[in-house]
């Protein structure tokens, strides 16, 4: 701490701290308890403020910004409903380990606990859905707290941090300014992995007959270096690699060693390889239940290596043989060093049988679907979207449901930070605000929200944000008139009783786009699809594409809930054939 002569108001301290911390954009919504901060925003031009239309969207936009840039996202909302509206976004960021700082206004210190107007116990409510949170009662602590909040959000396993600032603290003055690095009293995450363990991991990998890399969002969170180190190690090892939803793009989807996504809607080859492998190298993934399937049947014959920066991820659900606690990039760098300096050249035919097994599974072609000339198959729509955007600087966000899984299956992610999706929490309504955040960070890029007609309505109001800031986000709705994933489960598990999953009274999405001042396109026939996609890409403003797709298409392959990786439903399994025209599935 340094003493300066001049005293600054709490609101000035917040803006100055944000500037010092390199913040360029705030996503927010004003209100009574943050008026002093908004007044300071008005007086400056270093930090851009994006006015959203709902506080939940502010958090998702900040998530999109953070995930596509690697920088922390910043949110500013008012007290009470402003803070409670942000809770879903904060929980989303918590589960997907997205670095965020959310500044919430609070009623003046003297009124806390009195049920004052727009008072909520924000630190109490957000304690469980943030990595950490602060209530700043003294303006002298404000600068230090801001810096500490950024430190906590971005170090170790990233996550959201709330800084709750009572209105009087925003007005009171102080000369206290934090300078330089934060030395936290208790939070000091480990970065470097244990070297003997790393050597042992390389040895296990080099001697494996059936190795597999299983990688997740931790690779992307670790930064671009982690992705390039991963690529190098995977290529040297000759091993196959599969990825979680959150990890897509860390390894190029088009590479022959990549088996596609694993898990509930993963490919046949990825899941079978996970089941049969002898050495599994889990890099920055957390053995989520959507990935493992039935735990007691999960990869029964393998030795498991787990690289993670969060010690609590190790042995949480799956026992591993060799944990390595550290940052992915640091650990992979050390693994590469060991690989290169020791005699770890693979025997010529060491992995031949393994790749033959994999080839057999690949030939099962688990992503096949019945094409149609009458109706647009959702898979086909995404294949065409993929083909027509390959040469573009493209970022994809998704909502949650079937379209999200199809996007993961049929869009090829070649680079990290290109897919923003709600993995852990599964938040419908994530995609559009996330796309807004991505487009703010990458104004010239092609940003597409792959959406469903149900999810998109959960934060459709953000169209106004996109238009206000001339953000040309593209919303590509796979409109099947159902909450498709829920409907699919009703067909699989509830005898086809479609209880409240049909989207009745849908808006006319073309007119809706136009009402917001955006461009609307409807496409209903496969023959017209390419034209619609090209028109979407070429339009220099926000676009909604209402892509009418087969109503009852199911998302396969699928590991049913509670089944093992090698007990998958494949698209050509007869009893699960979809019957366009209304017949229920068995």
């Amino acid at each position: 701490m340094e003493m300066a002569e001049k005293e600054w108001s709490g609101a000035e301290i917040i803006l100055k701290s944000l500037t010092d911390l390199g913040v360029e954009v705030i996503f927010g919504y004003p209100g009574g308890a943050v008026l002093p901060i908004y007044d300071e925003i008005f007086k400056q031009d270093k930090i851009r403020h994006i006015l959203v239309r709902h506080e939940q969207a502010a958090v998702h936009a900040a998530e999109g910004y953070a995930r596509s840039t690697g920088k922390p996202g910043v949110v500013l909302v008012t007290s009470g409903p402003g803070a409670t509206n942000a809770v879903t976004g904060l929980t989303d960021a918590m589960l997907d380990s997205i670095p965020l700082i959310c500044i919430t206004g609070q009623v003046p210190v003297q009124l806390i606990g009195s049920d004052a107007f727009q008072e909520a116990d924000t630190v109490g409510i957000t304690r469980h859905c943030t990595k950490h949170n602060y209530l700043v009662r003294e303006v002298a602590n404000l600068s230090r707290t801001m810096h500490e909040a950024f430190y906590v959000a971005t170090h170790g396993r990233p996550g959201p941090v709330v800084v709750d600032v009572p209105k009087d603290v925003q007005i009171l003055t102080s000369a206290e300014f934090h300078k330089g690095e934060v030395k936290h009293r208790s939070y000091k995450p480990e970065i470097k992995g244990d070297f003997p363990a790393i050597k042992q991991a390389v040895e296990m990998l080099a001697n494996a007959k059936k190795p597999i890399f299983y990688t997740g969002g931790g690779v992307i969170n670790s930064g671009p270096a982690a992705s390039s180190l991963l690529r190098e190690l995977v290529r040297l090892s000759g091993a196959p690699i599969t990825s979680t939803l959150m990890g897509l793009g860390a390894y190029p989807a088009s590479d022959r060693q990549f088996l596609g996504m694993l898990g509930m809607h993963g490919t046949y080859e990825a899941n079978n390889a996970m089941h049969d492998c002898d050495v599994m190298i889990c890099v920055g993934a957390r053995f989520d239940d959507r990935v493992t399937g039935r735990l007691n049947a999960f990869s029964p014959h393998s030795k498991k290596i787990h690289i993670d920066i969060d010690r609590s991820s190790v042995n949480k659900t799956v026992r591993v043989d060799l944990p390595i606690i550290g940052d992915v990039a640091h650990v992979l760098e050390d693994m590469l060093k060991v690989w290169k300096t020791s005699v770890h050249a693979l025997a010529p035919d060491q992995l031949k049988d393994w790749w033959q097994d994999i080839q057999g599974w690949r030939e099962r072609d688990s992503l096949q679907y019945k094409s149609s000339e009458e109706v647009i198959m959702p898979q086909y729509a995404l294949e065409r979207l993929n083909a027509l955007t390959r040469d573009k600087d493209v970022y994809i966000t998704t909502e949650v449901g079937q379209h999200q899984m199809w996007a993961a299956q049929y869009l090829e992610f070649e680079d990290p930070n290109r897919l923003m999706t709600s993995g852990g929490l599964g938040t419908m309504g994530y995609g559009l605000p996330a796309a807004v955040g991505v487009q703010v960070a990458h104004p010239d890029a092609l940003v597409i929200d792959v959406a469903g007609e149900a999810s998109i309505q959960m934060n459709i109001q953000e169209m106004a944000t996109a238009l206000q800031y001339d953000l040309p986000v593209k919303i590509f709705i796979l409109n099947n008139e159902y909450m498709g994933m829920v409907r699919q489960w009703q067909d699989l598990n509830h005898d086809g009783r479609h209880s409240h999953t049909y989207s009745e009274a849908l808006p006319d999405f073309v007119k809706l786009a136009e009402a917001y001042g955006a461009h609307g396109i409807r496409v209903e026939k496969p023959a017209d699809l390419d034209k619609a996609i090209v028109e979407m890409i070429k339009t220099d403003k926000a676009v909604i594409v209402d892509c009418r797709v087969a109503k009852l298409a199911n998302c396969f392959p699928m590991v049913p809930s509670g089944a093992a990786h090698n007990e998958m439903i494949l698209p050509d399994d007869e009893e699960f054939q979809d019957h366009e025209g209304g017949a229920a599935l068995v």
Partner: protein
Amino acid sequence: MHDVTLIDEKIRRHTLSVIVDNEAGVLARVIGLFSGRGYNIEHLTVAPVDLAGSESRITVVTIGTPEVIEQIKVQLDRLVPVHTVADLTEEGPSVERELALIKIVCQGTDRDEALRIAKAFRARIVDSTKESFVFEITGKTDKVKAFIQLMDDLGLVEVVRTGVAALSRGQKKL
């Protein structure tokens, strides 16, 4: 806080010491972790322990399988204001004590019997009227429980317990 019968033989009772920053909400974080993730708390004590009052020591007695105990420790450790988590049960011999105040209301020979038992248990009388006693007893949880059980027949009306405080034996410092 209640005693859970140890049905699964893999389930063990562990005493954890947690050094935390003495800041607002830190106890709520720790308790919230236990309730949010479905862990058990059998005993919980907390108080500032350094002279400046900047650090608190939480002693928590919990039960679970070895896997659950391991998760509890690493989950506690990743809370931002937590400095140290030590498993006193695992890391060698430790001493554990708790204090209880026990009020009984009785007359006649029951009073004599209560005094005899109190003497045997080295419980102190901290308050007495013609028809009541308040005993103070310090010791291991088992001893405290045994004393309370004996007092139950002699007019036990109220009990308050501090929960366990524990330290490792020897020169070792957390």
